[in-house]
């Protein structure tokens, strides 16, 4: 991994966690806890995105609640999708970021369903879990309730994350853009 991408990843993990505090200050009804992961995917590609996802959930597992370890695969999917989409230039505009966010949401939500069912019996202690329970009271089968809740919440949240990443990328200095997009630089030293 290139040094710049490597040094960015811890900052991105911190963005994932610190934006939660910003959202809380503004009392906005969103998580926005994948902005850092998506940002790294967009800037440095899928491998760096996947590493950011793993690191992010490990740090959450170490600092707040071990159950985040169970969702490492979901975070990996988010980083991978953002990395592939970034290579395709999806974050150059909001118009590209919205479908990317929707796809990310669908894939991330679907990845979390088997984890939620196998490890947590269908509903995690979270807002998504409450939606699952409500759907169950309407006699929706468990698989479908868990899927609808996870995918629904993730589509909204990951779309917002992707749009925010696209907007922030336009705010990055040009110098940094070229630095991330450049192929690994070699000093051309001539005698």
């Amino acid at each position: 991994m290139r040094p710049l991408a490597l040094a960015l990843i811890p900052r991105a993990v911190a963005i994932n966690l610190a934006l939660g505090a910003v959202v809380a200050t503004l009392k906005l009804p969103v998580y926005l806890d994948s902005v850092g992961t998506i940002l790294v995917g967009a800037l440095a590609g899928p491998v760096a995105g996947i590493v950011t996802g793993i690191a992010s959930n490990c740090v959450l597992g170490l600092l707040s609640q071990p159950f985040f370890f169970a969702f490492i695969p979901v975070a990996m999917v988010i980083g991978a999708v953002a990395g592939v989409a970034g290579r395709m230039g999806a974050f150059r505009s909001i118009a590209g970021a919205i479908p990317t966010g929707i796809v990310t949401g669908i894939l991330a939500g679907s990845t979390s369903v088997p984890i939620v069912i196998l490890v947590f019996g269908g509903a995690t202690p979270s807002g998504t879990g409450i939606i699952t329970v409500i759907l169950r009271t309407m006699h929706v089968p468990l698989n479908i309730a868990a899927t609808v809740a996870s995918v629904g919440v993730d589509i909204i949240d990951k779309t917002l994350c992707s749009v925010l990443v696209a907007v922030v990328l336009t705010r990055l200095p040009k110098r940094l853009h070229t630095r991330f997009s450049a192929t690994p630089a070699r000093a051309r030293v001539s005698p």
Partner: protein
Amino acid sequence: MNDIVARLRIRRVSYGDAVALRDVDFEVQAGEIVGIAGHVGAGKTTLALAAAGLIGRAMPGTIDGTVEHPAGGDPPAAYVFANPWTQLTELGGTVEEEIAVGPENQALESAVIRARVDDALRRADAVHLATRLPQELSGGELQRVALASALALDTPLLVLDEPTAQLDPESARAFADALRGLSDTGKGIILVEQNLALVRELATRLIVLADGAVLADGAPHDLLGRWPPVDPRLGAPADVEREHEPALMRRPTSGAPLLDIAGLSAGYRDREVLTDLSLSIPAGSAVAWVGRNGAGKSTLAKTIMGLVPRRAGTISVGGIAMDSLPTEQRARHVGLVFQDPSRQLFSRSVIDEAMFGPRALGMGAAEARASAREALEIVGLSGAQQTHPGDLSPQAQRRLAIAAAMASRPMLLILDEPTAGQDAEGRGFIARALEVQRTRGAAAVITHDLHFASRQCDAVQRVGSAT
């Protein structure tokens, strides 16, 4: 002992299409301290990075020419950066673990690492910090940790890139004391410094850069003793300037108070920082707030803005009581510019950034644009209106933050350490901002730069206890 530790034969260093440095040709001998000075943007850091062998690796760029390290070493050079906080590798927990990171990367045995760490701690005057955590330390202490970390690599060449730029005068002096002891270690040292008095004292040879090329090369006392200075943008050491240009007359400071603070106590939940403070600033004047680190100068500014809880006393600005207003209302009357502009810049262009405050406070678009343009003109950024703020130098970013505050036309402007890292040209723009602000109300400058305070401010007010 006359070994060469670095030999630079550089025709050109470029980042993409931009050429940052041309035609630099010199050698660093063991035991020598080569000083590098120059205006902001002269190419000093590029030269330092190139000499350390870092260009083309972590820092993409192209060197046309050669950089050789005949004395070897892996890495060939150790480097101390300007920012005390961002040069920690984060791989170590305590200070001594952080210092050990270099030798650990060199895959040395633990006994050797131990010896290197202890030696480095001693040389950098940081033995008492060994078991502390870096996040508990001041900038000055951290810079000595950075120096120790560099020394622990035991490289023949040591490159210091404005190591005192972010330190207060006492910490800068302590750092200089640690540097003085290094000349007998047989290392070759490259010292990039904005503090001209310091580089004059320490360097055995001085190279002055201007616009990416060598302007002068010679004895430090000769080059920095000249008047007019070798480069007006660079300026001269404070004593030389004082000798040739007597201080400005202090203005009468007896107008009606624009800022009036009476019996103010303020602080955080567990800690009172300001106790029974009373002071006032007359309209039409600019005052300097001085005091040792931690005396409460920044806390005073934040209390005026309502960011730190007030326990007793009153604050009024232009006759308006601040005490019950939320921060964003106080912003109509007071502009506070923090030390670090990166905490506030987020727009795509300099002009948008300068318009953000006025627009947030409800000014119409046309009026905000006019006011922003005027403010940018004052700080010398007229030509950069469409530039991305992140592509400006840190010094220009700081001036942009000042312009962004002035664009809202507050009665009182408070600047926190505005001259840190600025060259003579930058200090001139900040003096001009104070000049304009006097006509709009008054200004307060939190500063350690007593030379600037004595020349550009009308009065000096000591904040905090005298202990």
